[in-house]
């Protein structure tokens, strides 16, 4: 197990190095930030001075070497635009993103798991049909459209929830619903299919024969075993929420990490894009590692195979 873990950690570090290298070179292909920082009437001299000040006049390999060296000592650089440390910007936005991600995930699991379970138990019934419609709608409605509809209905027509921005708990409801609906539908489908498989197994039949209460059979013996793929999926989804909620963040004017990265791409703020992607890839790879470990913990077969 120890060797396996060390191997996975090394893999993770290597993957991150590849990611930051790709991002470093790709961002530099997208245009020069100095052209946005200066007015179009600026002289060539102004241009040169700013390029020098930002270290962009150095050859690309030199810039890359400086960048990697700084990262190794925990220095992510300063924003081209604000000249403030990049870490400050990331920390400023991370709470909003985490807050939205947690609530959306919580809603997804709260809706998706019980609905998926009972949909499997009452296969072919009204509840199952309703749940399947819910799942199809959730996976086919674009979050952009859903977000706007929710804003119009709850914010404009009913006037009970704020239409955008970050504030108190009420501000969280609509973006979390938008983000969570898609994933709750996916979790529902996954739970349903896993439960269908589990419900047909011998140990469930045996548990029923033993005379256990149906709820105990379903929750303790059924769901616990069906949750393995769901947990894996949910962890990876949560990590995706942290960086991939750009659409939801844009529609709801939510000041999260995804929007920060998107805006930094448009303003060519390389250090923020690089650090943002680094944070997200670190989260993603760590999430992956965590899932692998969880898998081997939950499923003895995997543990033994790796051993």
């Amino acid at each position, binding site marked *: 197990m120890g060797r396996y873990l060390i191997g996975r950690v090394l893999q993770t570090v290597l993957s991150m190095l590849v990611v930051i290298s790709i991002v470093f070179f790709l961002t530099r292909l997208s245009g020069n930030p100095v052209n946005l920082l200066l*007015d179009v009437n600026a002289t060539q001299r102004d241009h040169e001075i700013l390029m020098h000040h930002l270290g962009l006049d150095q050859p690309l390999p030199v810039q890359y070497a400086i960048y990697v060296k700084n990262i190794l000592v925990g220095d992510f650089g300063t924003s081209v*635009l604000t000249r403030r440390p990049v870490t400050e910007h990331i920390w400023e936005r991370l709470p909003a993103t985490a807050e939205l991600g947690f609530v959306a995930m919580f809603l997804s699991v709260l809706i998706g798991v019980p609905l998926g379970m009972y949909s499997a138990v009452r296969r072919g019934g009204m509840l199952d049909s309703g749940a399947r419609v819910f799942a199809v709608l959730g996976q086919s409605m674009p979050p952009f459209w859903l977000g706007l509809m929710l*804003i119009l209905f709850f*914010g404009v027509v009913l006037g009970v929830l704020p239409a*955008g921005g970050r504030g108190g708990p009420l501000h969280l409801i609509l973006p979390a619903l938008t983000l969570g609906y898609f994933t709750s539908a996916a979790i529902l489908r996954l739970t349903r299919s896993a439960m269908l498989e589990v419900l047909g197994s011998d140990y469930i039949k045996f548990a029923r024969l033993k005379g256990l209460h149906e709820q105990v059979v379903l929750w303790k013996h059924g769901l616990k075993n069906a949750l393995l793929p769901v947990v894996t999926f949910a962890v990876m989804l949560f990590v995706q929420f942290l960086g991939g909620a750009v659409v939801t963040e844009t529609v709801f004017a939510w000041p999260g990490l995804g929007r920060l990265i998107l805006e930094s791409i448009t303003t060519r703020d390389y250090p923020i894009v690089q650090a943002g992607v680094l944070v997200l890839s670190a989260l993603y790879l760590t999430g992956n590692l965590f899932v692998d470990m969880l898998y081997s913990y939950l499923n003895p077969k995997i543990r033994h195979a790796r051993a």
Partner: protein
Amino acid sequence: MRRPLRIGALIVTASLLVVTSEAATPPEGTLTVAVATFGNERWLPHLYPGAEDVVLKPWGENLLSRDPRTGELSPMLAERWKVADGGRTWTFYLRKGVRFHNGTELTAEDVKFTFTQIAREGSASSLAPEFRLIKNMEVEDPHTITVRFDKPSVVFGNKVNQGLFASMAFIHSKRYIESVKEEGAERHPIATGPFRFVEHVRGDRIVYEAVENHWRATPHFKRLVFLKVPEPSTRMAMLRAGSADVIEIGGEYVDELKKVGVRTITMPNVSWVYIILGGQWPTKPTYDPKVPWAQPDAEKARKVRLALNLAVDKQAIMQRMLGGLGTALGSWLSYPADAWNTEALKKPYPYDPAKAKALLAEVGYPNGFETTMNLTAWPGRGYLPDVGEAVATYWEKIGLRVKRRPVDRAVFSADFRARSYSGVALAYGAPLVAPEPWEVMYRAGYTRAALCLFMEHPRFDEFIDRLSIQPSHQERVRIMRDEMGPWLYDHVPGVAIGAAHAIVGVGPKVGEWPLIPGHMGFHNWEYVTRAR
């Protein structure tokens, strides 16, 4: 100078009355404003190019302002001023007792410091070229500063003017910036405006608080919050739901806003929309003689440009792309009410595709030619790619083969600087950054300026040379009306579309809002009243 002084005295008196009346009703409540962009989100004089006008104007103040009806300069931080030596010397007499947000008094040293910062090497300020023409500055006493130029700078007052878009020579505190350093001043910036800085979360919000008993105008709202909401549908929903009180919105949404009963305020003639035809710079290394509209045969080139104008239905573009919010015009960088505009100049080039096709055939392009239309969005002018697309479609009707090139502003800014867009067209909306068209074109078409944006011509240089040293406003009006205007109309530098308005959506909290005609972007926040 007597008349401006009299007007100045009137404005001072009016300002005092406003201050007195405001003292009775202290600021209350929050005004939340949703805008598409904050610009570069910088706070120091050499770091903001100009697009930040909307979010910085509540906080900063210029030396002067202007009467929007007459265009005359009026006092602001400077209570009076004197122009001598044919425009080579400007002396500003500062108002006493004006305080920065940290309580220190504004002095002439602060003015000198700010102007030096704007002009410094590497400055991002759009005013840098003009401020670099300053020969020296002399602080005569704590409240008097004299600015000297080698050549006359007859419109320097327009560069230090609160009443114009992107004129952002806001006076900064020398002592404060030197004590907290640039980094500290960027984190907690101070100026002298009616709103003081509270918080800035990049890409999300800027929060201001009213300065009570401000020397000029105590705001009606206690807090002013700018939210960056890039999605227009969200801005509209926020306004309707009461999450925002003012929203920035494009003309294409005007019908929708009216349909749902949202109150709108029109800001008339805020930008001048035209199609830049790149490559009209015969003396520069990137000149390409094969570009039809810039070919060495000047008359043939002019006819090509005229044909490209005749091919386009400007009225239809105004109606469909800008929601009817604008006026199709033929005169260059002029607005319908300008004193240098005549009925003949205002008339748009007619829509006559048959004549356009015939003209092209006459100058050797019976089957049209290939060209590129860049589709680039500019802050606050999101309609420009649509205008470019519409013009490209009109051109195709007369036989041109137009390649569309969606290109980011950052990429195209580099093309601008390098003049590497010969043969490329681009829809552009010039904001009214200076009241007289030659001032705008000084930056866009004057060979001896720092950079030329889209054209050059010795005749045009002559106009600029004469206008830039002409101290008489009346004579400048005459030159623009009787000489430069007709010449530009005949020369056809690009495809003229016309003057575009902008609209603002406002919620029920907003009462009166006196806007300056021709000023692009939101402004005058301190005068926005609370609805009763």
